[in-house]
């Protein structure tokens, strides 16, 4: 499969180049070949970063960009081609006329400590966009996803009645036509999908969606703009006479009432007719927003009202939004926004009853010099299920700094501290997290680029998890177009409480890179 993937994508590139006049071809790119030496101990499912680190030879990268007269462009990008994973993308483009794309991605997930329980995921995609005349674009695409492998019982140690394996595939295709002329336009699309499960055919299903949108004129091009969308879809279980249909209509209008004042209204109507529940759920949403712009920023505010009616229960939502941005120049940017959303169970029939939720965010960024940026932020999320006695609260503080010195390199660092508190009638769950990331790049020395970084995560209170990722890397230019790349990673993970496990890995990546220039 690996050979097939690489071959198909490479043949596309070669054929495309061969089809062009030889007098006007250029091909630039990079080829990186190398290998990985990995030493690991502990639970292999603990650190996702190493799931696809293949211990052995690898085509680390093959990047080719070709240009042909009169204006065609072709690109092939293959990455991490090895026995476990591989990725590839192909693009052919004739600006204003044609675009062809293809891509492939295969990777794996590891579920058990020894890595024996794992699964493979493969994605294929192809697409085309044709522009026969300037104001018409026709597009088509096809995607295929396959997921097969072992299923891990959850929680660990139990026996799952869902079986020990899964093997399913989703294939979908879409065609669309878009018309844009003189600032106004429309688009229609049709999408079909099919899901199949080789181990349980009772789950096979298909779906079809037709949708359309209409705008006049395009946003930003008039003082009063309109956008209308509509969609209709059906999802059906293949082996049973059971489906659900979805219908949707949206309208958005924006009025530039004055140079400094913008008004916006949005309506959405939605119906889901589910034969399984025998319910028709109608949702209607109305939103209005106003934004006032002034020399140093803007003020905005809005209100939304929403109803959700499934024939048995009726809920309504009131949403309030407000925010401001203060930006007197590029050296200072400050912003605050607040939103609250209140759900009211009109008939007291839903399980969760009434809900109050809100979020406030504040952010400050200063840029005293072009090469230096400092910032800090705060956010608070609150959510209260008033009747059933559940409430959640989360705070987050973060700060960052970036410094770039041309000719020398760059430094950057981020820190965040977050608290998450959950409480219900019987118990609670509380977590405090510190996350630090930092990176340094040094490019002062001739032919040598150095870099390094760290990510540190510390989660406490009802959990006790520490995770550290460290890397150092260097690229040395041996001679024109030849480079030697070295990257060393350390992964460390300790869970002292929840699953009581650890993982440590040292990974050394060595690559020789060659820059291609063909004329």
């Amino acid at each position, binding site marked *: 499969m690996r050979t097939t993937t690489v071959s198909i994508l490479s043949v596309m590139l070669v054929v495309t180049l061969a089809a062009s006049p030889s007098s006007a071809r250029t091909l630039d790119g990079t080829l990186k070949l190398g290998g990985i030496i990995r030493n690991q101990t502990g639970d292999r499912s603990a650190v996702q*970063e190493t799931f696809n680190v293949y211990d052995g030879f690898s085509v680390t990268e093959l990047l080719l960009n070709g240009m042909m007269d009169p204006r065609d462009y072709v690109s092939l990008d293959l990455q991490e081609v090895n026995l476990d994973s591989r990725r590839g993308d192909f693009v052919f483009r004739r600006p204003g006329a044609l675009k062809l794309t293809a891509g492939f991605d295969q990777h794996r997930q590891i579920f058990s400590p020894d890595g024996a329980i794992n699964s493979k995921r493969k994605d294929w995609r192809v697409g085309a966009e044709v522009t026969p005349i300037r104001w018409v674009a026709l597009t088509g695409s096809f995607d295929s996803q396959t997921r097969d492998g072992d299923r891990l019982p959850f929680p660990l140690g139990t026996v799952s009645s869902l079986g020990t394996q899964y093997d399913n595939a989703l294939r979908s295709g879409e065609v669309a036509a878009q018309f844009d002329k003189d600032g106004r336009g429309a688009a229609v*699309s049709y999408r079909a999908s099919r899901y199949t499960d080789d181990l349980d055919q009772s789950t096979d299903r298909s779906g079809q969606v037709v949708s359309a949108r209409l705008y006049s004129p395009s946003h930003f*091009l008039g003082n009063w703009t309109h956008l209308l969308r509509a969609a209709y879809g059906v999802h059906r279980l293949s082996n049973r006479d059971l489906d659900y249909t979805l219908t949707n209509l949206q309208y958005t209008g924006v009025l530039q009432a004055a140079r400094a004042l913008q008004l916006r209204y949005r309506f959405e109507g939605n119906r889901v007719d589910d034969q*399984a529940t025998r319910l028709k759920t109608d949702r209607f949403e109305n939103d209005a927003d106003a934004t006032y712009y002034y020399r140093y920023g803007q003020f905005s505010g809005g209100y939304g009202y929403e109803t959700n009616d499934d024939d048995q229960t009726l809920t309504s939502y009131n949403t309030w939004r407000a925010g401001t941005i203060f930006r007197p120049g590029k050296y200072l940017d400050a912003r605050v926004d607040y939103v609250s959303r209140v759900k009211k169970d009109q008939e007291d029939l839903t399980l969760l009853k009434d809900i109050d939720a809100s979020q406030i965010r504040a952010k400050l960024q200063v840029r005293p010099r072009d090469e230096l940026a400092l910032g800090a932020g705060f956010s608070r999320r609150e959510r209260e299920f008033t009747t059933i006695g559940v409430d959640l609260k989360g705070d987050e503080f973060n700060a960052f700094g970036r410094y770039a010195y041309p000719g020398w390199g760059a430094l950057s660092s981020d820190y965040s501290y977050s608290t998450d508190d959950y409480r219900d009638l019987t118990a609670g769950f509380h977590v405090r997290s510190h996350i630090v990331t930092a990176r340094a790049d040094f490019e002062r020395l001739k032919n040598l680029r150095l870099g390094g970084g760290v990510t540190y995560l510390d989660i406490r209170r009802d959990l006790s998890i520490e995770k550290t990722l460290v890397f150092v890397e260097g690229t040395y230019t041996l001679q024109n177009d030849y480079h030697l790349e070295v990257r060393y990673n350390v992964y460390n993970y300790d869970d002292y409480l929840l699953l009581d496990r650890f993982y440590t890995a040292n990974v050394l990546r060595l690559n020789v890179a060659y820059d291609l220039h063909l004329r």
Partner: protein
Amino acid sequence: MHTPPRLSIRDALWPVIVGLLLAVSPVLRHGDLFAQTKPRASKVCLDCHTGQDSIMAATDHRLPAAEGPAARIACTDCHAGDQRHWEEDPKQYPMTDPAKLNAGSEARVCASCHQNAHQQNALERNVHAANDVNCSACHSVHRSTHPALLRQAESGLCYGCHGDVAGQFAKPYRHPVNDQILKCSDCHMTLDQTRRPLSRNGTNVCTKCHAEFEGPFPFEHQATVDYSTEEGGCISCHEPHGSSLPRMLNQPYEPPNFQLCTQCHSVPGHNLNPMHGTQWAGVPCNECHTDIHGSYVSHLFLSESLQSRGCFNAGCHQF
């Protein structure tokens, strides 16, 4: 009990459709929004801005060999000004740099050619437009080898502003964004899809990859369907960016409380009841309620295999 009046789709849509037609009709009679009055030039620009044609060659903005009214693109399509800039004094008569304009003004320049769904969505509650993030903040229109002329590859581009989200992707259980298997736009840019309306809480974004949960199920779990009146959708139980808990759960699924479930369900009978005593106290909920995303056989999401335990005998539980 008083029953509030219910709206039907027909009742609600008629006023909207009529209002829309009334609103659109005068707009359709407007003149050509793109009436070309400014000069179109490219070659003269390269006399001073040497090398720009080579820089742009690998992009969709590659300058055509011929220029004039029929040319596909010209420098002056984006850089507003007039011939005094190159004929008289370039400093006294500068051309505009769209990248230095605010979000609305630059978008207006880009919209003269690009009127796709990505731009249309700025009409709605697009957080970038609302926060005055202009097109050039993400797109490098002269030089980029990344898809969609992005300034740098995702997710690094997004982390530049959303540093707090980068921290969430450092958590033990997360989507493989940092591994380049997924991109931020795989989930967040679905606004661009014309079919986007068929979702409320993002569930149709999740089922793009997790197709096995898309349904329909003969027995739906209200927590998983995004049209639910119960605040449903995948994020009712999962943290999509990253979580400290297995399966990216947003609450622990550990004995004795299994808070993931008890945040909505108060089930004291499972812990102590006349028939079973405390037999089921502390037992994971999904040991019986196996098909929790939706079941093909049981309205309680029970497994058929439980029949062998005698749970469904007459007079006991309804399967």
